[in-house]
């Protein structure tokens, strides 16, 4: 990357060291699916230019929390969110906030690779196109190339940009989905178990990619793999039965957690 962004990274890291800068702040977040309560007053802050991993056993509410961050829960009937979540200083559940604009700022990568049944180029160009980010064809070409490069996919697909995105391998498809999310230039990228459908080699590539993306984006990742959380994240949050059990530096979390339940989960006693 160029000097500008490196300077930005250093500045961000500097800020992190001195006073922590929070990109998103969740305060007393509760989620209900109809009568059923899925999250209990979660207070969790997401630090800027940091990878935050959400771990916990199945059904603990980590994916639910992730989806509150770009209001993907809105699409589920009967889902209700209380509490307050801010992105920078904007309350994202404020009626004045446009959900379309929010999702352009908070992108998402899903568990299963879900490229559109269109060409690789069209997959990446779709987001910038609907948000009007590129005026000319050359601008769009540049965005597509940069996004694919950021996703580490450019060299593999540059000769077949106009072939179907669904013809790629699983790992390539997932990186295409990451490129698609990156193309909109979001501030935060949410990843919901992005490697659960991938083989170890593809997983390694995606993890490496997450590591690089941290310089430009704030990342929140849900994962079932403790090793993955340890490898890619700087902060880890542990959920259990809809409660946030503990949120800490990843190193501390995996060596000397504050909470007994975290210890038990990491040791494999449950979950």
């Amino acid at each position, binding site marked *: 990357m160029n000097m500008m962004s490196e300077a930005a990274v250093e500045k961000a890291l500097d800020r992190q060291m001195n006073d922590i800068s929070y990109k998103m702040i969740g305060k007393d977040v509760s989620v209900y699916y109809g009568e059923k309560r899925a999250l209990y007053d979660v207070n969790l802050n997401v630090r800027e230019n940091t990878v935050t991993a959400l771990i916990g056993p199945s059904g603990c509410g980590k994916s639910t929390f992730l989806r509150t961050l770009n209001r993907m829960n809105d699409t589920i009937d009967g889902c209700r969110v209380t509490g307050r979540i801010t992105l920078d200083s904007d309350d994202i559940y404020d009626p004045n906030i446009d959900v379309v604009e929010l999702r352009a700022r908070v992108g998402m990568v899903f568990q299963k690779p879900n490229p559109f049944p269109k060409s690789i180029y069209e997959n990446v160009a779709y987001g910038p196109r609907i948000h009007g980010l590129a005026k000319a064809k050359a601008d769009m070409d540049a965005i597509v190339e940069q996004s694919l490069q950021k996703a580490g996919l450019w060299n593999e697909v540059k000769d077949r940009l106009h072939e179907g995105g669904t013809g790629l391998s699983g790992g390539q498809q997932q990186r295409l989905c990451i490129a*698609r999310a990156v193309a909109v230039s979001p501030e935060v990228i949410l990843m919901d178990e992005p490697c659960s459908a991938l083989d170890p080699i593809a997983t390694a590539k995606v993890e490496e990619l997450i590591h690089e993306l941290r310089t430009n984006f704030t990342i929140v990742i849900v994962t079932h793999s403790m090793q993955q959380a340890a490898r890619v994240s700087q902060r880890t949050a542990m959920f259990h039965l809809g409660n946030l059990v503990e949120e800490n530096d990843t190193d501390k979390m995996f060596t000397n957690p504050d909470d007994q339940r975290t210890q038990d989960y990491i040791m494999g006693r449950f979950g």
Partner: protein
Amino acid sequence: MSQVSTSPSMAAVGASAKPERRDIGLRGRYAAERRFRFYGMAAIAFGLLFLFLLLFSVVSKGYTAFQQTMITIPVEFSQQIIDKNNERATNPQKLVTANYPVVARNALAKVLGVSEDDRAGLKAVNGMISDSVRVQLRNLVTADPSIIGTTQKVTFLAHGDLDSAFKGQIDLSVPETNRKVSDKQVGWMNQLAESGALSKHFNTGLFTNGASSRPEAAGVGVALIGSLYMMLIVLVLSLPIGVAASIYLEEFAPKNRFTDLIEVNINNLAAVPSIVYGLLGLAVFINFAGFPRSAALVGGLVLTLMTLPTIIIATRAALKAVPPSIRAAALGLGASKMQTVFHHVLPLAMPGILTGTIIGLAHALGETAPLLLIGMVAFVADVPATPMDPATALPVQIYMWANEAERAFVERTSGAIIVLLIFLILMNVGAILLRRRFERRW
């Protein structure tokens, strides 16, 4: 014993003594599978048999309708008969009202050598010629009055009964008084056929003519145009309305009691007998809105109402079949709901929507009962110029012809069924091709 089994040599012996196999019912399971396959094949064979019987019965009865017996002879346009007093310059009605059948009868009598005084013979000769010759010769003369007094070679339709006899559809072994064609006429028919004056031609009239009480002059022309108008109206109205309704219900409408009620009602409407739609159309479009009776417009509107539930159900099923991950991907990128639907969901659902639409249209094309109630079961001889003009439809034409007594209408009924079946097959092939064309994998 345990000591023995540990020695290697004895272990080999132990392995050769196989343990008794458990009976896990393999034989029974395979037998069940074979039985099931047999049932399946039997069911398919049964279905194919009836399909074959249907097609065979229709085609074997109907293929002759595509040929028509015609008589080609020199016809003398006698001034004596057409315009005895030479008053056509002053009385334009003269050429219209002239006795043209006599012109044709005399021409045929001359060829057959029947004397002008043999009244019974002339009557028999007249019975070999279609009454439609009146209109044909009149048109010839009014188009060019100078042919009066000349002799022209004219090809005209043989009478329907003679047509049936020539096609071998009349049993000549029954007593002469019990059949429509006399022995004398059969003799003349063979004589004319030998001389080449009487032969079978391709029946273009079947596709261009309207209703006629003379089977040889009747055709599905009006019915084809009427059906075409109705299909266009149904397509233009039901596709946009049906797809819009389904998209709203499937993607935008909140799921509550009210939308549940609507869904149940749409499913019920799909099962409402079509004749009820006919009554509805009669009450709403004709009695209340005042549209003309027998018009293709009203028929199209009624069939639209009937087709809508089919299209809505097919479209909703196609929309439901689009993987939710595609919606999530688009929404996650910040696409609005409408962009998600129109950029991603709808293109993927398109094959299903088109298939449903064409099946709905094919259903509408074959529908008869509602059209009976809005007056499309009418005797319409003139080709309708607009959808507001009286028209009939193919299935109604079949229904009307099936009620006719003449032998020649039997083959026409089957012929019209063949035409209808060809259109249905074309539509279904179109559905398959469109589905192939739009199908995308994900």
